[in-house]
């Protein structure tokens, strides 16, 4: 992939990888947009989704994507419970309390995963893991295409949900002006619960596709959290389409960075770009 004169390959890889990044970041963006909470545990919740897929695959022999039928409702309930019993209370305490609680959740999840699954690196290997598809003469891994497709589907589904359903409109209203939403008879506590739970659904899906693309360990959450932050920062907070475009940009920056400066420095370039965007346009490229 590296070193040859062909720039198309890293470009396509970057776009496809960006779909995965967007998928990981959508839940973070949703929670931030609605509750103004940086969910520091998001990366670990995504990895929890990966381990969920792994457990269903090894114990029940389910395909990871089929396994989502079981893991999505579980993650939905978990998200609702976290918001109701932990975050919801934390908001009443102080401005940094939710952040610290999220840190605590991250710590608990990481170490619970470590105890349950050992620190060994795991992967969701399926019959189609090593297949590839071709554009012209160039070969690309099939999992990357699946990632990208899943990213688009989840993004469009979330967008449609926020625009067309009553609950989605209520979530949007609560994120724009909490007090006005309450005066209009919206139960913001319930709405926050649903928003967090829906973010968890996207984390469950992201976890499965992440696990099919890269090997993961109990501590992988931190690095994917940073990537998700970068995506959300570049795309602007709370906007689903912006987050998706942010993911694509980040993916392209990474693969082109690797193409021009060598694979070792690709993540460094991503972080530098994130810091530059933060300094110049803290609300993100597509934020208002």
């Amino acid at each position, binding site marked *: 992939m590296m070193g040859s004169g062909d720039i198309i390959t890293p470009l396509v890889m970057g776009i496809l990888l960006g779909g995965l990044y967007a998928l990981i970041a959508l839940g973070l963006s949703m929670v931030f947009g609605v509750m*103004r909470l*940086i969910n520091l545990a998001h990366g670990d919740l995504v990895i929890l989704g990966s381990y969920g897929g792994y457990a269903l695959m090894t114990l029940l022999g389910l395909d990871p994507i089929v396994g989502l039928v079981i893991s999505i409702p579980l993650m939905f309930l978990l998200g609702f419970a976290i918001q109701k019993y*932990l975050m919801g*209370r*934390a908001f009443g*305490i*102080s*401005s*940094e*309390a939710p*952040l*610290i*609680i999220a*840190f*605590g*959740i*991250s*710590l*608990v999840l*990481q*170490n*619970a995963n*470590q*105890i349950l699954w050992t620190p060994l690196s795991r992967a969701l290997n399926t019959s189609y893991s090593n297949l590839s598809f071709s554009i012209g003469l160039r070969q690309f891994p099939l999992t990357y295409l699946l990632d990208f497709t899943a990213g688009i589907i989840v993004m469009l589904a979330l967008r449609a949900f926020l625009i067309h359903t009553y609950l989605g409109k209520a979530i949007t209203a609560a994120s724009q002006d909490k007090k006005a939403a309450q005066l209009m008879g919206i139960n913001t506590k319930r709405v926050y619960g649903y928003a967090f739970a829906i973010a968890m659904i996207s984390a469950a899906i992201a976890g499965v596709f992440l696990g099919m693309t890269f090997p993961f360990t109990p501590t992988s959450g*931190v*690095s994917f959290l*940073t990537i998700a*932050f*970068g995506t959300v*920062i570049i795309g602007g907070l709370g906007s689903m389409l912006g987050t998706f475009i942010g993911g694509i940009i980040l993916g392209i920056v990474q693969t082109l960075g690797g193409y021009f400066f060598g694979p*070792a*420095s690709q*993540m*460094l370039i991503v*972080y*530098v770009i*994130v*810091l*530059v965007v*933060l*300094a110049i346009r*803290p609300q993100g490229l597509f934020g208002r």
Partner: protein
Amino acid sequence: MKLKATRSKLTLIPLAALILVLALLPLIGAPQSWLLYAFLFFIYLAMANMWNLLAGYSGLISLCQPAFLGLAGYTLAIGTWVGLPWWAGLLGGATVAALFALLISVPVFRLSGIYFAIGTLVVPEALRMVFYLWRPVGGQMQGAGAGYMIKGTGGVSTHLIYWLAFVLGIGSIFLMKRVLKSKLGLGLAAIRDNERTAASCGVSVFKLKLYTFIIAALVTGLSGAVYYLYQGYIEPSATFNVRWTMTLLLATVIGGIRTEEGPFIGTIVVVFLYFLLARYAGYSLLIQGMILIGLMLLSPQGIVGMLRRSRYYRYLAQCVST
């Protein structure tokens, strides 16, 4: 009145005795493991005090403390490779950390509140990549990553390193007292109560926050350099690691954020848990995470918040502060 003064002096005696015992710990033949835990206590205490100054008193939820301690550690390590004496490495490391704080203040001080936290979280991640790739001295990589041995510290006894940490840990308590009573501390208190009112009364919000950021970077850097002097080896992935941030945050929040004695009490808990569960590293952090969540919900002011409800503790605290 006079009687009260003598009584309060009497209550200070156990505290002074404890500090004396800690200072003499290496000389009275304490086991090596005790020395290690006391050493860790002092290093964490100095860093937690600085995090409390930033997050508790200045509203700067900094998640980039590993950057300061790591840069100072690397300055020390690289310094010993080019023939600098170790003490120059310590001072140089602290200076580099402070200068780096000044440098990154340009982008991150444009951000406020939660955005500041996100911006600072990225910094150690980027630095880890830099130190994976950049190897200024010493030629080829050795083993995994770009680690450095800290050379020529044969003449530095472990007792000396212990006392350095002791001075830093105890010194950071007095530094906090000094800063909070100074004009800087008063300005920070005004900003915390109401930033706009403070600004309109002539408090330079930006400058005061920058000063605390640099002070915190300096002390965190110095503590980091002493830590790596003890460790004798530095490598990027454990250095620029979110674990450090977690330790400081845990110590401060468990003890009581925005209280002067919070980091002291919190650091005791963190080191004690570390000691108690040394063989089960995973369980130790799992339990710390649970304590963090539980404590935050039940007593947002940490252990100090709970203790302050008892009259005896208030009396004791009064004696110590007078």
